């Protein structure tokens, strides 16, 4: 499957195994995962619950450490990385979660602009310009100073999308971003994500159950019982 894609993939996984617990309690959830995601690609991870797709996402997102095998993300070897490396990788990734998890005590604008704390090289004025621009392009231009409590579910998830994208990440990881939304807003969010990612040629790896959004994918990886079952 990697043969058709250009060299130096953004994600490169080789024989990755992962398990929880040790000894008698050891429970392996990922078996021999080998896959790549190239720059600009949109890849969906599907499969029944318990198939290990979210766990794989947390490994790629440098939130958990690989137990066995090799995993390279954004040219960093995560299987042998330190905590500092982990934090560095996370800063180059845009995360979108099932729950928006916006800080409830800060406005949409503040939530998004907060991300520039991790990028001190961006000036303050530049940061607020980028923030306003991006929030406007996700259709929240008139909601900049609203607290999350006053936004609808779809609007909150769009703020979360803006937050993930505002600092120009090199990779977007999304975990069922549409799960908490009705079909219409879910579709909107995904389309938005697709457009923004395409414009910036930023690859997306998205875990989803939602059959309505499969059409945006360049590739669909289907997982079952911790193994890659099929690639479409």
């Amino acid at each position: 499957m990697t043969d058709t894609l250009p060299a130096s993939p953004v994600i490169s996984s080789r024989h990755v195994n992962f398990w929880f617990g040790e000894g008698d309690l050891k429970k392996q959830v990922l078996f021999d995962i080998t896959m790549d995601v190239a720059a600009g690609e949109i890849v969906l991870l599907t499969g029944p619950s318990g198939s290990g797709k979210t766990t794989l996402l947390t490994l790629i997102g440098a939130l958990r450490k690989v137990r066995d095998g090799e995993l390279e993300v954004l040219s960093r070897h995560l299987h042998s990385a330190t905590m500092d490396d982990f934090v560095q990788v996370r800063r180059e990734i845009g995360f979108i979660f099932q729950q928006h998890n916006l800080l409830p005590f800060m406005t949409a604008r503040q939530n998004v602009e907060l991300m520039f704390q991790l990028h001190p090289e961006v000036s303050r004025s530049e940061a607020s310009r980028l923030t306003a621009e991006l929030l406007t392009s996700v259709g929240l231009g008139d909601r900049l100073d609203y607290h999350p409590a006053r936004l609808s579910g779809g609007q909150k998830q769009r703020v979360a999308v803006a937050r993930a994208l505002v600092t120009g990440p090199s990779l977007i990881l999304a975990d069922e971003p549409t799960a908490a939304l009705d079909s219409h807003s879910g579709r909107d969010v995904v389309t938005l994500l697709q457009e923004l990612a395409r414009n910036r040629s930023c690859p997306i790896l998205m875990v989803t159950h939602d059959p309505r959004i499969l059409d945006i994918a360049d590739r669909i990886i289907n997982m079952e019982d911790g193994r890659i079952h099929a690639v479409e």
Partner: protein
Amino acid sequence: MYSSFFVAWYQLSHNKVKLAVASAGVVVAVMLMLVQLGIRQGALDNSVAVARRVTADLVVVSPRTKTIFASAQFPRRLLYRLGSSEDVEEIGEMYMGQGRFRNPWNKLEFPVSMYGINPHSPMMNLPGIERFGKQLELTDRVLFDGLSRTNYGPVVEQLKEHGTLDVEVNLRKVRLIDSIEVGISINADGNLFMSPANFLRMFPDRKSGSVDLGLIRLRKGVNPEVVRDQLRHYVGQEAKLMTRDQLVDSEILFIRENAPLDFIFGMGAAVGFFIGFVVVYQILYTEVTNHMPQYATLKAMGFNDFYLLRMVVSQAMILSLLGYFPGFLMALGLYRVATNAIQMQFSMTAARAVAVFVLTLVMCGLSAMIAIRKVRTADPADVF
């Protein structure tokens, strides 16, 4: 941009009620600490007030005397020996005792501190006593301390109105001729000043040959410590010579050893500290607990523990500041109330203000340190 400090401020100020409660906790803590420490200092100051009023360069006390409020007497003749030193300019004697003053209105007796002293040259800072020198030489004439407690009745008003007041002290009828303002202490509810001769009239058991305190004024320009050492052999084992500073120090030491001031008021201040600590900890802990998913999300997005720790510590520091200043003002008010209520002087010192401010920062900082342990457990992998 949104540094951890501003994020902390947004988090705290988002819920105004919670902010008010947390600040109120710190206000109470600050107020308690300032008031308790202030009263402790006030009580200490007041109890050494008599020693501080001595203006003589050297004092002579009995070697048995631990505090001048319960002094042992020593032979007066020892004082006369000291006159042979050319460094000694003037020698005075003082008799002290606890008398019983009968309130002329309700006919009850109250203890009162009595000082028998040369009214022409008391070598004590008793403002205005010299004016009454001539009158105090007359038999059974006594000067009242206008700052005495109200136990003794409306003496000052009476003196203003009628000039004199006849009262009973130690079962003897004496005449109060006027009042001067000196001040009371935890050892004395009121003070009476009189000549040594009148003192002995009211204390028929006491002999003029045994005095409580010798007061010595030295020639200008001599070092009291040097002279003290030179004079030591004049009095031998029968009396002890001290400089004025030594007297004050030994009185402070006595009070701290014998009255549980440090313990009682230190305990009060500690309770204040603990209250503030618990309130701030509770607030910070619930803030952290309620926002665990958000904190974990921030971690997943690349914020390190240090950033989150700064957020929590900043909240603690903001609470310190919001609580300190109102607490400080309230303490000032309470000092005034206490001063009026118990007629002892309580005042704020810069050192105490700074010390309590530092304590407040420590208090909130400690709360933050403990609440922070929870932040560290925010696992970014749990966000998914």
